[in-house]
């Protein structure tokens, strides 16, 4: 079993959801990101998503846009991302990269899968790669033992959910809101139904993200999903209070994961 699936098996046996945290590589700096993630893991984060900073983040709201911009201005390159994966996976947590498609295509699918795997990475989340365009990516990730994570949305038809589930290997990422990333006061009631629908098509873990920021929201989601994904809230915490604030947020969110 892969480390990623081991963690989901463990959190399940502990009768709780896994806490999945997102942070862009190079934010606030290359070393700073690693320090923050170390603090987050110490605070209870189970799985880490490292964002591949991209110039045109059409799925991100102002918080992550700003963080990514700081990262790129600070000189983040593809190599920074791979190196961050290496340092984070050495902490013993399953480490994924979340990337818009063009940086991976530019790197070369085979090369990226090779280098990512060599760095100890577990899987790659590709939010703007549709299953229809993914043939070469499926081949490259299969070949190099890299898990694939695709997304489902509240607007996805059953047919699309089944298609997404059939090409996913890591976990299915269910978007909790129709919209860009960023903390939301309230999430859609429909998300529980979406998770239930996904389960009709796959036994893979289902994690819920987009807009999730508070322990209360985490608690609600933990009742029906296998993972809770939090991004913007960590970025904001780090902007305000660095690694200690990131650790405190991870601890607070962890409190909400029990079923």
């Amino acid at each position, binding site marked *: 079993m892969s480390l990623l699936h081991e963690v989901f098996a463990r959190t399940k046996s502990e009768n709780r959801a896994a806490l999945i945290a997102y942070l862009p590589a190079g934010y606030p700096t290359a070393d700073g990101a690693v320090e923050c993630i170390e603090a987050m893991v110490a605070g209870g984060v189970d799985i880490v998503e490292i964002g591949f900073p*991209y*110039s*045109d*983040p*059409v*799925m991100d*709201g102002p918080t992550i*846009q700003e963080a990514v911009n700081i990262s*790129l201005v600070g000189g983040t*390159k*593809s190599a920074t991302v791979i190196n961050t994966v290496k340092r984070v996976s050495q902490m013993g947590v399953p480490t994924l990269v979340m990337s818009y*498609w*063009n*940086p*991976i*295509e*530019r*790197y070369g699918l085979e090369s990226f899968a090779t280098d990512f795997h060599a760095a100890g990475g577990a899987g790659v989340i590709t*939010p*703007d*790669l*549709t299953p*229809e*365009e993914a043939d070469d990516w499926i081949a490259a990730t299969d070949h190099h033992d890299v898990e694939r994570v*695709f*997304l*489902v*949305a*509240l*607007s*996805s*038809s059953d047919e*699309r959910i089944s298609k*997404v589930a059939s090409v996913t290997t890591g976990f299915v990422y269910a*978007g909790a*809101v*129709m*919209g*860009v990333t960023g903390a939301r006061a309230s999430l859609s009631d429909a998300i529980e139904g979406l998770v239930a629908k996904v389960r009709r098509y796959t036994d893979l873990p289902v994690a819920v993200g987009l807009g999730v920021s508070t322990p209360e929201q985490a608690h609600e989601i933990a009742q029906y999903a296998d993972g809770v994904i939090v991004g913007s809230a960590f970025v904001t915490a780090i902007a305000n209070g660095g690694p200690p604030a990131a650790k405190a947020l991870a601890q607070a969110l962890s409190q909400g994961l029990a079923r």
Partner: protein
Amino acid sequence: MSVDEVLVMPDLRGHFGKFGGRFVPEALMAALDELDDAFRKAMVDPSFLAQLHDLQVNYTGRPSPITHAKRFSELAGGATVLLKREDLNHTGSHKINNVLGQGLLTLRMGKTRVIAETGAGQHGVATATVSALLGLECVVYMGEEDTKRQALNVARMKLLGATVIPVTSGSKTLKDAINEAMRDWVANVEDTHYMLGTVAGPAPFPEMVRDFHRIIGDESREQMLERFGRLPDVVAACVGGGSNAIGIFTAFIPDSEVRLLGLEAGGDGVETGRHASTIVGGAVGVLHGARSYIMQDDDGQTIESHSISAGLDYPSVGPEHAYLADIGRAEYRSVTDVQAMNAFKLLCETEGIIPAIETAHALAGALEIGKELGKDAIILVNCSGRGDKDVETAAKWFDMNP
């Protein structure tokens, strides 16, 4: 590649060869499928086609004439330069062709709000216009930089009842306006249609926008045969996203003896890196939902484009152009700011027509290829828009302010 194969492009998933497709968040897939379905049904529905035709004739003022630019021709090596006068359309550019089609589709899909991106403001004005005509709420995203260089069009959009939102992220130009429009669309897709203004973006936009613009070439081809008894040797158009160019090219694609020439914005010159010539100077990549030629660095980050023309200042290009370039059916060249502004002034002074600066790039291309081909050649140029919006920029460029 046979002409027949070209003609059935794109495939069922919106691919033009290896270009095009859909690279979008899953949240948008349902809306793209809905749009695709509405578009295909409308295009075979006689009542939709009749409604569109009525607006094209009685609102836009189609067909647009072809003007023989006699004095300008003398400067183009004596070749005959003909102008397809899309600048005479209501709202002053070709952009109205596309928004009338998409506006009617918006009604058919039962949506009440439209959003659009705009660079030069011409697509924004066209979208605001059709929204007023059809009673739709309209929000236009425009890079802050462009709101300054196209201030006249900002005022026009506001007069037409649209909300204009200046975009301050990234390069503050067209690319960032598209990013912001896509963010809006994902959040409001239930009641909102994204009226994309060019032949870029995810399927079905490149195909749909092409089909709403192909009337330019369909009319031109007929007008050529009727008035001149022959087809042109060259059809030339400027290429930003590529809608006016695809619009005039499409009818001529099967006529293999007709050269198709796309003129990209060269800014300070392709060799300086400060340009917007994606086919001439870019590489294959994915931006804004489609695979095409884009301007990017070694890490796949988009490089900001540069052009004096807001409407051409875009670091990608429609996937069908990428494909036509790859198979050699169309040829693409780069025109610098200086060359374009030179052609701009020449058309003003020889023909009494003030063109859009975008269009001036096509005119510069005509001057060049006219000199190459000599006086027997006929060059049909898509005069995609009028230059009222550019008067301020031109006055500054030529140092004409009092």
